């Protein structure tokens, strides 16, 4: 084992395989499981990344004469030594097949939808206009936390939510309302630890006020069915709905201190 690990050829092989696993599986499937927003990498991008990794490994190996010799040694041995005949034969078939398969992947007719790399939580603006009134978002807190009765705010928020948001975000707040399947991208799941607890209330306020049409261009703005609620709801109703979202899911909002420490 040791012997393999300290050998340049196997080091290179491990780096290549590990990179592939990272690009193919970790980014797309493991990160989302541990709560980091991410999406599978398209296969053409993976091929590009892998080429870069390969060139990098070769550059590193050839930078030092002795290392280069040791790196090449097993390759050369496989090519020439009589006792490695079988391995040689297998590789001589496997390698062309791999290349042929990669080529096929490139030219085969594709009936897949074009990949849209959507930023799920794009950076919010510093301010927004609500029916013509300018509101600073940076440092903005939910005003209802300081005034009136929390019980009443929550009752208002629940009433607003059930009439307006249930069709998409669902009774369980899990993004599976009875119309959710008609929308692509799907409505946000508020019970996911990747959404509400990662966001300040002012961010959520911005998203509710401006909806899909208010997303910055990198969010492929015109796809999201999320309505711009400023035309339908009052500011206080939106703040009350935000209180309800956090209360019903049991998540605390992200604070401005956390937000500051993050940047």
């Amino acid at each position, binding site marked *: 084992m040791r012997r393999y690990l300290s050998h340049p050829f196997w080091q290179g092989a491990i780096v290549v395989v590990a990179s592939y696993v990272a690009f193919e599986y970790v980014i797309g499937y493991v990160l989302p499981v541990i709560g980091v927003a991410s999406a599978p990498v398209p296969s053409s991008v993976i091929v590009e990344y892998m080429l870069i990794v390969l060139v990098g490994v070769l550059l590193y190996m050839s930078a030092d004469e002795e290392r280069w010799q040791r790196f090449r040694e097993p390759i*050369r041995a496989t*090519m*020439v030594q009589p006792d490695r005949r079988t391995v*040689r034969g297998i*590789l*001589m078939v496997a*390698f*062309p*097949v791999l*290349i*042929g*398969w*990669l*080529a*096929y992947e*490139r*030219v*085969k*007719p594709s*009936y*897949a*939808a*074009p990949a*849209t790399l959507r930023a799920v939580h794009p950076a919010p603006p510093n301010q927004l206009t609500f029916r013509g009134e300018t509101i600073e978002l940076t440092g903005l807190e939910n005003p209802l936390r300081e005034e009136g009765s929390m*019980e009443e705010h929550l*009752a208002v928020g*629940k*009433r607003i939510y*059930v*009439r*307006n948001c*249930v*069709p*998409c975000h*669902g*009774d*369980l707040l*899990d993004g*599976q*309302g*009875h*119309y959710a*399947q*008609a*929308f*692509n991208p799907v409505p946000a799941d508020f*019970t996911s630890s990747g959404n509400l607890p990662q966001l300040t209330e002012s961010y959520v306020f911005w998203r509710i006020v401006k909806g899909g*049409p208010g997303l910055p*261009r990198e969010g*492929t703005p*015109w*796809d999201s*069915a999320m*309505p711009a609620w400023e*035309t*339908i709801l009052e500011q206080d109703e939106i703040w009350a709905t935000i209180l309800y979202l956090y209360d*019903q899911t049991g998540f605390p909002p992200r604070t401005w201190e956390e937000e500051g420490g993050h940047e």
Partner: protein
Amino acid sequence: MRAPRGTGIVLLALFAAAPPALVGQQDAAAAGKVVYDRWCAECHGEAGQGDGSAAASMLPRPRDFAQALYQIRTTGSGQLPTDADIRFAIENGLPGTTMPGWPNLTDQEIDDVIVYLKSFSRFFAQGPAPEPLDFGSDPGGGPAAIEAGAAAYLTMLCEECHGLSGRGDGTSAPTLEDWRGLPIRAADLTEAWVFNGGSSVEDMHTRMLTGLDGTPMPSAIDAMNSGVVSPDEVWQLAHYLASFGPREMPPLREVIRVGRAEGGLPADGGEEAWAGVEAFHFPLSGQVVQLPRNFAPTVDGLWVQGLHDGIDVALRVQWNDPSNSPDPNWDEWQNKITAALDLDGAEPIALDSAGAPTVRPPDAVLLQFPFEMPEGTDRPYFLMGDAREPVYLWTWDSETGVGAARGRGLDSVEPLAEDPVAGEATWEEGRWTLYVRRPIEVESDGLDFVEGTPTPIAFQAWDGSSAEVGKRSSVSTWYYILLEPPASSTVVVTPLLAMLLTGAFGLVLVRRAQDRRRDR
């Protein structure tokens, strides 16, 4: 949480009547009230009367627990449900309504909330616990059973409500009301995934024997007892129903593949020409984004098929709509929907002195494309574009037929001067079939389909007889349509060439290395 006014009285009543066994019930009811207030009260109302704040925007309305009229039962018509029945409804929800299942509740919470639901009605406290019916056993399916079932479908007059093909277009369909007098659809039997009580043969058999209390859907028990049908025939009827269509909602595929037509494009939407062409299903939602919204639309999905011949592209779109609007037979239905559903600020259609609607809107469908092919993944706003990025609309309605238009938002549609879109639609047994056709490239506008490249497409639909006009429609977001390019040899040649080259290169390398070794 605020204490609901009614509950104190309900709990008091429970206490007053309490034999010792009920003391545990009181704790459960109190725990159930906590669950209920948190998750259920906003729809079902604080006192369980189905009158929560948003009830008017829901059809069917949330259940009124004071009436104790439950649909999902294993007990006879008009009887109370068992606890297991109520649990089934809570766990699985009632698909196709605003109430999905509640997988977030624990077993204990469901037990408690059931006790609390039952406390809303005095009926549960009276008399013995309800007993499930004997459902007999399934004699089995197969072609013979299905044929017998088809006969029973007619003998038992199912088609009067559900229609011959099961799409809810029977002659009585426009008159159906639930116990409140609100309009109710006879279920579309071809969309089993929105059945309230499950879509398996057993589920459907159970629903037939029990009926759906509170709705016009009758129980088959009387017909069985009076000898109109035998118990086996009711099972066979269930097998027949299972042959109406897929049990689950068809999986969503984002790209409509439009194959090349061998031997010319179909000239209309007729069955023979389109049989065997792959069909793609797209669910639609009520338009709940801009005012006035449509909270309970009729059209909940459509099927799309496509063919092209390199010059024209032809699409066949099919969707279920029980009414061929405008149809005066549906006047009363239209009035009832207008009165029952929260129109969200839309002007209700006025009635004349005889009580008939002054306007009978047509049925309509839109196919939507970008007006100019956009850069990258950018697309116009999915609700018919905006001033900056307009959309290209293939329009159809049951009064004016097929046309082409430019859309700049939901309320800005202007017909195109040069209209290259042709087609027609027919309505049969509760289903519209629309055939549309257009050249792949049109000089006068920017929408040119490129073979092999996906073009964005979206849909919208209206049912005139349910007073759906203007923004009160069914909608989808963007999907894609892709015209298959002619079969090309590169798919085979390129990989082969790549393999040959690598193989040859490998051989040369090995040969050289071995030569060099021998030389040394």
